[in-house]
């Protein structure tokens, strides 16, 4: 649980942020200079807001009215800074274990596990100065993970990392959140990462938080196009695994009025899953087509059509009580004679579906293509 309602001045920026989340991963999303780092610094206790409060789980970290202002070292926040801020005089290993020997936080996490996850095995005796950009970033992540935090703040932690490494780390963070119950405040410019990882999305724009809420809702909102990056818009679909097809490596997911086939190798029947379906990956057909490699085809009802200038149109369709967005050309809207209320066939390539898992007892989601 994260409950933030603060205002304050940072340089020329007038920050006024208000949002709440139920734990899990809360993503801060906004343009460069919108105040993301400033906001995280206030939550971490590095900048004192002028008013408001900050609560994590049941602990009040800051409350201007109540005169509460826990010092940084008492907040137990694992902070991955945007600039890694490694200790230049300490070896990688001493950096990683700093919270243990200097912060007296024994830490429940295993050093070896984190070292393996981040691929730091061969770097332990090195000094930060000799590390590459991505290596520094990984050490910074490891240092925060090992600090036994009750909240993890990660300020663009994967910016300099390659896809393979991201694909290792993201599920780990997911698991940390789900299994260990550590909430994460995640700053990222990558809507991919945000969509894949977060439960709650907070939009930050010029120091304000014009909107926040469950990530699915937020990604479906068209009024936030500019902030979230329109072409990355999509929908999150809730479903339940009904069957695992080991022969073809496919998993069947019941989403209510349809069953989707997705590539997956780690699901069990009965698992609750969330699927991210990007608007650009959804095609529509006026009549159910046959003989396509596209495996997912089901009927849906057009709820709205937003035609924009330019070549694109955004179609919102409902399947049962869930929503799916499609982006097609305006030309196709005309060709297929689409209108609100019409029933169309939604086509989604299996390979284009991202799977995310939620719920405490679930196994770790694996390295699926994003």
């Amino acid at each position, binding site marked *: 649980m994260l409950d933030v309602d603060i205002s304050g001045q940072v340089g020329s920026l007038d920050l006024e942020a208000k949002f709440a989340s139920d734990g899990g991963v809360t993503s801060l999303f906004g343009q460069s200079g919108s105040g993301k780092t400033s906001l995280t610094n206030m939550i971490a206790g*590095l900048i004192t807001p002028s008013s408001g409060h900050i609560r994590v789980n049941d602990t009040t970290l800051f409350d201007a009215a109540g005169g509460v202002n826990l010092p940084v*070292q008492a907040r*137990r926040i694992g902070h991955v800074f945007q600039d890694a*801020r490694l200790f230049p005089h300490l070896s990688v290993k001493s950096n990683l274990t700093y919270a243990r020997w200097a912060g007296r936080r024994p830490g429940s996490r295993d050093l070896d596990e984190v070292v393996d996850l981040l691929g730091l095995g061969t770097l332990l005796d090195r000094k930060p100065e000799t590390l590459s950009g991505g290596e520094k970033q990984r050490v910074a992540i490891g240092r925060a993970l090992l600090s036994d935090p009750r909240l993890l703040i990660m300020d663009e932690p994967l910016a300099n990392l390659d896809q393979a490494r991201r694909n290792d780390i993201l599920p780990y963070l997911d698991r940390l959140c789900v299994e260990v119950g550590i909430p994460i405040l995640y700053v990222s410019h990558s809507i991919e990462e945000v969509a894949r990882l977060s439960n709650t999305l907070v939009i930050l724009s010029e120091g304000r938080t014009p909107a926040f809420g469950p990530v699915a809702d937020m990604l479906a909102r068209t009024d936030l196009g500019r902030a979230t990056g329109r072409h990355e818009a999509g929908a999150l679909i809730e479903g339940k695994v009904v069957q695992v097809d080991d022969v073809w490596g496919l998993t069947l997911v019941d989403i209510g009025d349809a069953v989707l086939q997705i590539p997956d190798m780690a699901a069990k029947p009965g698992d609750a899953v969330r699927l991210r379906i990007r608007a650009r990956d959804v095609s529509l057909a006026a009549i159910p087509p046959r003989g396509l490699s596209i495996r997912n085809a089901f009927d849906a009802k057009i709820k709205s059509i937003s035609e924009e200038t330019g070549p694109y149109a955004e179609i919102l369709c409902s399947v049962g009580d869930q929503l799916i967005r499609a982006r097609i050309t305006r030309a196709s809207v005309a060709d297929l004679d689409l209108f609100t209320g019409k029933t169309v066939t939604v086509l989604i390539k299996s390979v284009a579906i991202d799977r995310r898992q939620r719920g405490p007892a679930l196994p770790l989601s694996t390295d699926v293509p994003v």
Partner: protein
Amino acid sequence: MWPIETTDRARVDFFDLQPAEWQALLLTLRVATAALAVALPLAVLTAYLLARYRFPGHGIVNALVHLPLVLPPVVTGYVLLLTFGRKGPVGEFLDNVFGISFAFNWTGAALAAGVMSFPLMVRPIRLSFEAVNPKLEEAAKSLGAHRLVAFLTVTLPLALPGILGGAILGFAKAMGEFGATITFVSNIPGETRTLALALYTATQTPSGDLAAFRLTLIAAFVAFAALIASEVLARRLRARLGGGHA
């Protein structure tokens, strides 16, 4: 030690230290080391306070620290004599309560050396503290380190080159201190006659020229040794600190 040809006799004599010289040398090292041992931690503390905090009296502390530099050493020595001398208020108190006496013994010489070298230590150390990125201390705190621990594990080690630099200036000054020492604790062989004072003594009569020259060489040699040691240490330190630039 090794067999020496008789023709080398004079040269050998020249390089063999006489008892009085040994005495002065050892005393100098003792005084300078003691001065450093006591003054350095105080200098580090003072430098840190001056570097990181604005408190009422900041300017006064800063000025007091520098005062021994601005006044002629004789004056500082005289002030020490009046304050810490056997009949001085502080001296009397320390003597009565703790049995510590600075009057005319080597601890007094160390006190004079410490006071005189204090400003030379504070300045470089303060600069080093100011050069340490305070964001690193923030990072340490965010990892649970309390203020003092963060200081000891991050800021202090990163300021070590400056502390070493200050220590060297201080040590060199302590070794060469003359004016305040001779004024405060006089020039007593074996007790307060350091190399610098012995050198002065030698220059007081024409026949002392050779002795003065020898003493100059000894002082220079010790200083060289200390400097070289410090350079080696500094280089290692810089290597360990990774240049301080993460």
